[in-house]
């Protein structure tokens, strides 16, 4: 994806993470040690940029997928 999207880290193996975007799962590069499984993160251009608040991330994903409330 070419601009930042929220997703949940399902698994980290070395420098790669499996990210759950609800509609799909995709891999992204992890370039820092600060992330762990279960974290909600911002991913852009296949790079995990930073961790984001989980409530915010869930609301954001709901917005993206057209769910209200």
């Amino acid at each position: 994806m070419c601009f930042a999207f929220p997703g949940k880290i399902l698994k980290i193996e070395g420098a790669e993470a499996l990210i759950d975007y609800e509609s799909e799962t995709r891999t992204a590069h992890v370039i820092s040690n600060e992330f762990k499984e279960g974290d909600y993160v911002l991913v852009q251009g296949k790079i995990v940029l930073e961790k984001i608040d989980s409530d915010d991330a869930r609301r954001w994903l709901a917005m993206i997928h057209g769910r209200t409330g």
Partner: protein
Amino acid sequence: MEEPVETYFLKYAFPCTFVIRLRKQVDEPTFRKLEAAAMQGTPVDRAILENTYKKAFLRMKKIASEMGKDYWSPQVIREYFVNRHNAVIAEDEGYKEAPATLRELCRTEHATVVDERDGILVVQFGENRTRTVSKAFVPDAKTGDRVVIHYGYAIEVE
């Protein structure tokens, strides 16, 4: 090499097209076209840009008449995105419904590069806030440079 003003506009405008798409104010084909153009630095027809970013152009036209310039000039574009855009986000009804993270990302900030690696920059702004952003638009940026950040990108070096 002078970059076309349409490209400059799109560098600032594209990251928030996400929000316009959520409001269903842009269709998928136009969105994909804008995305490709923003990533590759290719210019897009002014008519398409003005039709997609209607609110931005309304505001830019006002700024243009304040500044006595053509609204399609880099100075007007910069004035809007760097100095006025954040106030718009604070007041806009649509943004109020968005999660705080998204609203924050849509702001432009003046930031200093504190680290760079692997296609990203770590920047510091505000009161000791740090964010990781893409280097795609500023490939030559380095530690110590001042940049304008918007969404997940450093848009330009100041």
